[in-house]
């Protein structure tokens, strides 16, 4: 049994040495989460903007549901997506279970409500401020949505980053639908869980350090965005 210092040194050694397994795992993690966040934005931005900017029956209920879905337990999402994708499930014929695509679907289910709910809040606040001016200028619905999204850009990027942070650190859903298969569906979080239980602490720790680093970078991005938003008098 090595001491903690020894494990830590080996972990940094893996990172510095650009270890092939490590790079593969980190690469897959980033790929899966980036695609999931992009898909979530493609769904969540227009959905949130529509709920935030238009008055229609059921709007308040949708807002409540979106906010509630932000706190979806990832394990339950994993179970739900598993049931959909399993051989006997409605999407079974697509044979997506235990592929990166399944993990993207699961993370998309987790991130979309985050993006949509934060977008709704941002767009609704902006709309309250712009409503009269837009009505006076005779802005049509499409141009209005576009302007609200563009003028909310700093908050919306922050929302996407929040979704990214949630998805990249998430383990429960991807381990159920991905299966943590070596060289196929092994991502940072699932590898850390597995390698730790195997006693392969240096790889687990190396991945943990990288994951922490990503979290720090994401937060730094959010804070610098906030700073630049203030300098253009965004608030």
């Amino acid at each position, binding site marked *: 049994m090595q001491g903690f210092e020894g494990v830590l040194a080996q972990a940094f050694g893996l990172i510095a040495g650009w270890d092939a397994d490590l790079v593969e795992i980190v690469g897959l993690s980033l790929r899966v989460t980036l695609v999931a966040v992009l898909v979530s934005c493609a769904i969540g931005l227009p959905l949130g903007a529509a709920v935030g900017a238009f008055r229609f029956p059921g709007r308040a209920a949708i807002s409540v549901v979106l906010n509630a879905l932000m706190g979806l337990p990832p394990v339950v999402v994993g179970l739900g997506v598993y049931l959909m994708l399993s051989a006997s499930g409605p999407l079974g014929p697509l044979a997506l279970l235990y592929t990166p695509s399944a993990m993207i679907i699961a993370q998309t289910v987790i991130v979309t409500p985050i993006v949509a709910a934060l977008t709704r809040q941002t767009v609704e606040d902006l709309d309250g*401020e712009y409503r009269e001016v837009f009505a006076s200028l005779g802005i049509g619905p499409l141009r209005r949505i576009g302007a609200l999204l*563009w003028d909310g850009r700093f908050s919306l990027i922050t929302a996407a980053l929040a979704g990214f942070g949630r998805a990249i650190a998430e383990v429960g859903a991807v381990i159920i639908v991905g299966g943590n298969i070596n060289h196929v569906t092994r991502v940072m979080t699932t590898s850390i869980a597995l390698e730790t239980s195997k006693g392969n602490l240096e790889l687990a720790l190396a991945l943990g350090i990288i994951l922490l680093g990503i979290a720090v970078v994401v937060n730094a991005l959010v804070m610098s965005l906030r700073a630049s938003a203030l300098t253009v008098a965004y608030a």
Partner: protein
Amino acid sequence: MLEFDAHPNVARLPAPLLEAQDLSLETRGAPLLRQIDQRIRAGRRTVIMGPNGAGKSLLLRVLHGLIAPSRGQVTWQGRPLDRQARSAQAMVFQRPVLLRRSVLGNMRFALAAAGTPRAQRTGFAWQALAEAGLAGLAHRPARVLSGGEQQRLALARALAAEPELLLLDEPTANLDPTSTQAIEARVRAASDSGVSVVMVTHDPAQARRLGEDLIFVHAGQVVETGRAADVLLRPKSPLLAAWIAGDLIADRP
């Protein structure tokens, strides 16, 4: 019925540009505007004046179609105020609401909304900024401008659509004298080029400087109308006299 309609010089008028017919507005039973019958004449500068809470800004919003009246209607050149009629009007608000983009971006947005072809927007925008004296600030974020500059931009944005009628809701209430002068000069220039103007103000001096026709509103009702110069000099109603003398500050609810 209206004093200035009986005036010999204006006896034979074409259809008014904008007309309020039996206009009332109430929320939860509380009357905010009461049975307003009023004509806005084309090519004139009409000033709506009155104490705080009199309903001046509400009346302006109803005339612009931003708020639907509870009873009565607004007509534009004899027809109901529809979307097309609205696009012939532009409004400047008391507090300028500018988009979170550059000064130039704000102008381009207004031009796009007015249907200016994409290829011409940038050229028109620069021209409008030059006229407003804002060309040097074109690439600055609009919301870091001073209050006066923001309001000049809001006015330039409103005029970009080449409206027939310009509505202004106390546009200089929050501004310093220099900025007020710049806004008034721009409004006068627009008026001289044929744009009809309706302006809400609580400042009798401003009404004297800019007003040709005057509508005095009190407690949601039109109390007195006429040529601004006549009415301000010889008010008929005691309320307007008190207002001009500075003894009437705000409406009691």
